[in-house]
C-alpha cells in the first residue's frame, strides 16, 4: 500500500515536470501580453506585471500631450494589437476562410461518399481507388505546382487562392464513406418508397445521420486551417487585406520595434485563445476530431 503510494507520487512528479514545460510558452505568452516594455526587457514583474501606467513614446511623437499618452501596459498591448495591425480584419478573414473551406468540403464529399457506399454503378471501384491514391498526396507537398496554376489564372492574392486547394478533402470522403457503410440500407429504401429523390436522400436523410461524424470532421478541418501558416504564406504576397491570423502575426513580428513585444504577444494570445478555449470546453469532442485520422 505504502509502496504504491510512493509510486503514484513519483508518477505525478514526472508528469508535473511535463506540465510545466508544456504550459511554459502559454504562460509566457499571456504574461508578456500583459506587461510593459520595460518589464519585458528586464524580465521582471511576475505574471501580470505591476500594471504601472507608462508613457507611450510613439503617441507623444505624434504630438499628443504626455497625460493623454499615459496608458496601462495590458490596455496598451491589446489596444495596439487591434489598432496598429488590422487584427479584426485578420480574424474575420480567418473565419471566412475556415468556414468556406469546411462547407465546400462537405458539399463535395457527402454526395461522393454516399455514391461510393450506397449506390452501385459502373466505375465505382475506380473512383474509390482514386480516393485511396489521393490520400497519399499531402496538399502542402504540391504547393508549388498549385501556386503556378493559381498564378496562371490570376488568382494569387485572393480569397479563392486561400480556399480552392482545400475544397477537396479526400480524407473527408473516405471518412464519410466509412460512416455511411454503417447506415442501414432499410433507411434509404424507406426514403425511396416515400418518393424522395437521391439528391434529397443525401441532404435530408444521410446528412442528419452523419452529424456526429461531421462534427468531428468540422473540428479537424477548422483547427487545421485556422492554424495553417504555410499555404497563406505562399499565395498571399503583401495584400494585407487578405491576411489570415497567422500571417498577420508574422507580418507584425517582421517589422517589430522594441516596444511592441507586448502587443505582439497580445496578437498571439488572441489568435490562439479561441481554439484553446473551445478545446477546454469540449475536450472529448476535440480529441475525437483531431485524432480522426487515427480511426481508419
Amino acid at each position, binding site marked *: 500500500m505504502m509502496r504504491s503510494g510512493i509510486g503514484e507520487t513519483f508518477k505525478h512528479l514526472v508528469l508535473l515536470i511535463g506540465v510545466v514545460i508544456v504550459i511554459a510558452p502559454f504562460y509566457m505568452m499571456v504574461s508578456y501580453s500583459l506587461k510593459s516594455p520595460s518589464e519585458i526587457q528586464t524580465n521582471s514583474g511576475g505574471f501580470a506585471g505591476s500594471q504601472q501606467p507608462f508613457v507611450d513614446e510613439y503617441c507623444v511623437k505624434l504630438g499628443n500631450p504626455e497625460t493623454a499618452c499615459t496608458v496601462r501596459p495590458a490596455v496598451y498591448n491589446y489596444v495596439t494589437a487591434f489598432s496598429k495591425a488590422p487584427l479584426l480584419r485578420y480574424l474575420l478573414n480567418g473565419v471566412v476562410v475556415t468556414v468556406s473551406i469546411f462547407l465546400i468540403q462537405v458539399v463535395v464529399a457527402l*454526395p461522393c461518399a454516399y455514391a461510393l457506399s450506397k449506390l452501385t454503378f459502373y466505375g465505382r471501384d475506380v473512383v474509390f481507388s482514386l480516393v485511396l491514391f489521393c490520400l497519399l498526396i499531402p496538399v502542402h507537398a504540391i504547393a508549388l505546382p498549385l501556386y*503556378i496554376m493559381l498564378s496562371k489564372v490570376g488568382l494569387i492574392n485572393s480569397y479563392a487562392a486561400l480556399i480552392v486547394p482545400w475544397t477537396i478533402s479526400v480524407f473527408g470522403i473516405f471518412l464519410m464513406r466509412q460512416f455511411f457503410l454503417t447506415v442501414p440500407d432499410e433507411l434509404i429504401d424507406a426514403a425511396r418508397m416515400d418518393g424522395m429523390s437521391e439528391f434529397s436522400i443525401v441532404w435530408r436523410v444521410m446528412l442528419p445521420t452523419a452529424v456526429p461524424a461531421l462534427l468531428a470532421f468540422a473540428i479537424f478541418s477548422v483547427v487545421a486551417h485556422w492554424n495553417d501558416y504555410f499555404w497563406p504564406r505562399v499565395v498571399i504576397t503583401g495584400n494585407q487585406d487578405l491576411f489570415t491570423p497567422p500571417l498577420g502575426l508574422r507580418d507584425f513580428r517582421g517589422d517589430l520595434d522594441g516596444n511592441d513585444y507586448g502587443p505582439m504577444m497580445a496578437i498571439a494570445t488572441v489568435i490562439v485563445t479561441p481554439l484553446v478555449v473551445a478545446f477546454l470546453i469540449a475536450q472529448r469532442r476535440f480529441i475525437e476530431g483531431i485524432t480522426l485520422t487515427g480511426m481508419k
Partner: protein
Amino acid sequence: MTGRAQARTVPYLFVAPAVTLMVVILLVPVAIAALLSFTDYSLGNADFSFVGIDNYEDIFSRRTYAKMIASSLIYVGVVVPASIGLGLGSALLISSLRFAQDFYKAVFFLPTMAALLAMAIVWEFMLNPTIGSVNALLSAGCASPFWHGLLSGAFLGVDPATSWYGNACATGFPLWLGDRAYALGSLCFIGVWQAFGFNMVLYLAGLTAIPRELYHAAEMDGAASAWDRFRLVTWPLLGPTTVFVVTITTIRSFQVFDSVEALTAGGPSKSTYVMMYAIYEKAIRQNLIGIGAAITVVFLIFVMAVTLIQRHYVEKRVHYS
C-alpha cells in the same frame, strides 16, 4: 423510362465534383511538378527548355541540397522517435494513475490546438539569449550550489568543467536559434513539444482497447515484472497504433515549415534548411521553379514511400484490429 435513366446518371453526378477536383487539385499538380522538374522554367518567362536530369543532379551533388536533405532527415530522425517515446511514456504513466488523468491529458494535448507559428514565436522569445527566460533560468541555476551540482554532474563526481552545464556556466549559454550547432536542435525541441500530446492521445486510445484478461494471463504464465508485461502484452498489442503514429508523425515532420520560416529562415549557414522551406525559398521567392519542382518530386517520393510502407504493415497486421 426516364426514371431508370436518371437513376443511372445520379451516381455519376454525385461523384463528378469530387473526381474533377481530385484530378485538378491533386493529380494534375503532381504531373506538373514531375514535368517541370526536368526544365528551367520560371514564372513570367515565356520560353523554357528541357534540361534533362540537371535539377536532380544538383539536388544530389550540391552542398546546399546535401544540407537540405541532411537537416530534413535529422529533424525527422529526432522528432519522430522523441515525440513517440514521450507520447507512449506519458500515455503509460497517465493510464496507470488513480486520479487527474483527464487533467494531464488536456494539458499535453494543448499544443496540438495552438497555431504552431504563434507558439514558435513565443519559444523564440523564451530562447532569446538576452531577454529570454530559458537562459535566465539556466544561469540562475549556476549560482545555486544545489542545481549546479545536480545539473553539471558534480554530485556524481564528474568534473564540472567537463560537463555541458558546468562548462556553459563558465563560458555562457548558447544562442540557441542563432547558433549553428543548436538551431536545428532547438527547432526539434519545439517540434517535439508540439507533437507528443497528439501521439499520447492515440496511445491512450490504443491502451484502453487492450483487454485486461491478457495481463492476467501473462501474469499466470510467469510475466511477473511490469517490464515483462509491457514487452509481452502492451507493446505488441499497440503495434497498429505505433505503425499509424510513426507514419503520421513522419509525414508531419517532413512538412515542418512554420517554425523554420519564422525563426531561422533556414540558417544559420543552412543548418535548418529543411525541404519545405527550400521549396518555398527556391521556387516561390527566387522563382527557380525547375529546382523547386525537383525538390517537390523528391519530397513526394519520401512521403508516399512512408505511407505505402504503413499500408503494407497495416495489411500484414490486420488480425490485431
